């Protein structure tokens, strides 16, 4: 029974070994997974090519449903990206050191889900080949993007966020890349030599490193918040009932952190299982993540209630009508599913027994994410189905083209992530060392006992030595 966030006595050499091992000789399962992802992608590519050739028609989009799954999934992936920032930046600033073993893959998740999200606005364009018109490139025709449009805000925000989080991921990885460099052979060595940028761990480098890490953390937190509130502006800035909602920015951010954390739990369990990271991704850390998720889930629930209540309380007849339609209309099954998965299911996280039981958590986290995806769909579509002009009311279900592209996006994310875990250390070695080091120096056994030990535990915690390793 794991009781400590991490075992202070773990040998540093072992940390290196374990992590580096995880990066080598992929097993059969890995290749299978990769193959699946690529298969999903290729299906999506076929669908996209078809759509490109014929037009948006086959996707079942229609008047008035000009948007549907593409945008919903776009919002979903953007949301997914926020967890990484949460763990790496926020927890870094409040110095919650239990983040150290697990923030690396969360950070990677951020970058990759952004790379996935970025595809959707492009895919959903009627004339993809002109997508670059959204950027303010120098044009002799003197035409510019319309800076009033939330879509342009998206373009700016996502570029900024992608750049920053990618840099953040990379900077944070440099010392580890140095480790890889020192242990790798062949092409990997060349690669890491370049990437580690001559890191040699002298005090100067560490000093500046600490600064930049802090500074970037400070940047990323407001950035993450701004990004998702801008995404929410796509809807909140419109005048459509059910979109024009004041609580959307916080609602979206909460939802984002929520789905992000759920995704972290999923990947946490997968990595722990496949890479035998039991030593680092420990149950207590898992528990902490779960608690965090639960808290956010409650925030999300609260914001939901607020939205409903406000709509109900207000005099906007049309918005009220739409709300009722969500409750009992054709979308009701999905709507209620979303509420159940998003607000009821998370209560499983409140029970220690369940929290510590990984298979349960795995399933739960998947369902939480499904709920979050439904949330996005239920935001986008019902408003289009029932808005101001009753004559334009309609109900539309997405076609296989849309579905396959949506599924493909999961394949794409999976592929990126799978490649990542084999090329880069998915656990931050140097930071685990720091964690161990500091714990060893600042946590006496008494404290440790107070903190972690329970009556049930065996008392055979070896006396921590003062030796390095």
């Amino acid at each position, binding site marked *: 029974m794991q009781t400590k966030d991490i075992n202070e006595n773990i040998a540093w050499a072992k940390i290196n070994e374990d992590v580096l091992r995880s990066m080598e000789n992929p097993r059969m399962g890995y290749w299978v997974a990769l193959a699946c992802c690529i298969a999903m992608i290729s299906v999506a590519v076929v669908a996209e090519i078809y759509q490109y050739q*014929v037009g948006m*028609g086959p996707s079942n989009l229609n*008047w008035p449903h*000009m948007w549907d799954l593409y945008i919903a999934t776009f919002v979903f992936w953007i949301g997914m990206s926020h967890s990484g920032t949460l763990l790496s930046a926020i927890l870094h600033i409040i110095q919650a050191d239990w983040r150290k073993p697990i923030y690396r893959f969360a950070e990677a998740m951020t970058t990759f889900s952004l790379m996935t999200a970025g595809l959707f606005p492009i895919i959903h364009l009627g*004339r993809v080949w002109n*997508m670059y018109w959204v950027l303010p490139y120098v044009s002799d025709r003197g035409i510019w993007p319309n800076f009033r449009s939330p*879509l342009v805000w998206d373009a700016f925000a996502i570029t900024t966020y992608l750049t920053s989080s990618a840099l953040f991921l990379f900077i944070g990885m440099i010392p580890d890349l140095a480790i890889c460099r020192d242990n790798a052979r062949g092409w990997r060595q060349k690669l890491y030599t370049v990437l580690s940028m001559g890191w040699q761990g002298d005090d100067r480098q560490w000093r500046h490193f600490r600064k930049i890490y802090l500074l970037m953390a400070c940047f990323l937190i407001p950035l993450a918040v701004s990004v998702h509130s801008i995404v929410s502006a796509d809807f909140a800035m419109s005048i*459509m009932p059910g979109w024009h909602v004041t609580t959307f920015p916080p609602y979206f951010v909460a939802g984002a952190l929520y789905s992000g954390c759920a995704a972290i739990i999923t990947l946490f369990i997968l990595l722990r299982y496949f890479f035998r990271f039991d030593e680092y991704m420990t149950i207590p850390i898992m528990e902490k993540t779960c608690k965090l998720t639960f808290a956010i889930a409650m925030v999300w629930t609260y914001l939901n209630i607020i939205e409903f209540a406000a709509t109900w309380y207000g005099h906007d007849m049309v918005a009220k009508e739409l709300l009722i339609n969500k409750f009992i209309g054709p979308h009701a099954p999905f709507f209620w599913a979303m509420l159940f998965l998003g607000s009821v299911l998370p209560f499983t996280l409140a029970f220690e027994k369940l929290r510590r039981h990984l298979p349960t958590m795995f399933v739960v986290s998947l369902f939480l994410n499904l709920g979050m995806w439904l949330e996005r769909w239920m935001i986008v579509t019902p408003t289009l189905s029932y808005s*101001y002009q009753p004559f334009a009311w309609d109900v539309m279900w997405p076609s296989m083209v849309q579905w396959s592209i949506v599924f493909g996006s999961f394949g794409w994310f999976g592929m990126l992530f799978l490649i990542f875990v084999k090329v880069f250390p998915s656990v931050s070695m140097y930071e685990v060392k720091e964690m161990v080091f500091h714990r060893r120096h600042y946590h006496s056994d008494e404290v440790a006992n107070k903190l972690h030990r329970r009556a049930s535990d065996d008392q055979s915690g070896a006396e921590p030595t003062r030796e390095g390793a």
Partner: protein
Amino acid sequence: MSLKNILENWSHYRQTIEDGGHYEYEHMWGMAIDLNKCTGCNACSVACYAENNLPTVGKDRMRKGQGMHWLRMERYWDEPEMGGEEKEYQERGGSFLPMMCQQCNAATCEPVCPVAATYHTPDGLNAQVYNRCIGSRYCSNNCPYRLRYFNFYSYYEESWPEPLNMQLNPDLSVRDKGVMEKCTFCIQRIRTGKDKASREDRTVQDGDIVTACAQTCPTEAIVFGDLLDQKSQVTKLWKAQQVELGKTKQDKANTELRGYRVLEGLNTDPCVMYMDRVREA
């Protein structure tokens, strides 16, 4: 130098619609539609198909909601008023509402377009630049009237088999897939009318320019004209109905007048005024 430009004209560039916007309008094309006269015969819609190269998309796509009816004749049945008993028959007939782009002055579709493909012309028209459109379809989502239609396919490929294509109006383009489009108040006719006037160096007179729908309407329920021209028939009608631009709620001296603008409470400031349907009882 642009910086200088900004500093000098700052206040000018900060003017919103309430302050009259940043340029003087040459015209403000508008309509007045009398639902007392409109019989819902749908001639306007077909005339629009004929004038504006609208494709016929066929049964399935039409049913899917992928049709291109710029001007749609909406028909509503009376609903039993609150508490009122269900009548056995629609004793008062139907309510017809011809809906074409309302050419809003505070158009909700404009600010959301990422590439500025839809904007306001000095004619007070809400123009859609097909060549600039990248098909994000945000404008249609943000149009409370749902009056923007999207080319979900390359309709022209099937819509005009030889020799039907010879009927196409060369004054405007045939749209390709991936482009948003909508009623333009027959901008090609406006253009021709203005050119003609300028050739005869005179100003455009009321009646020089008439849209296809207004022209074909057997009951002359649709009146088109320039709202800035004080002598134009449409202006007279707006005045008579005490309906003014730039208001979210018309404060009328005579509250019994029929004039109103659809959903004007949303402050879209549409340029199309409707006049209520009339029934004996």
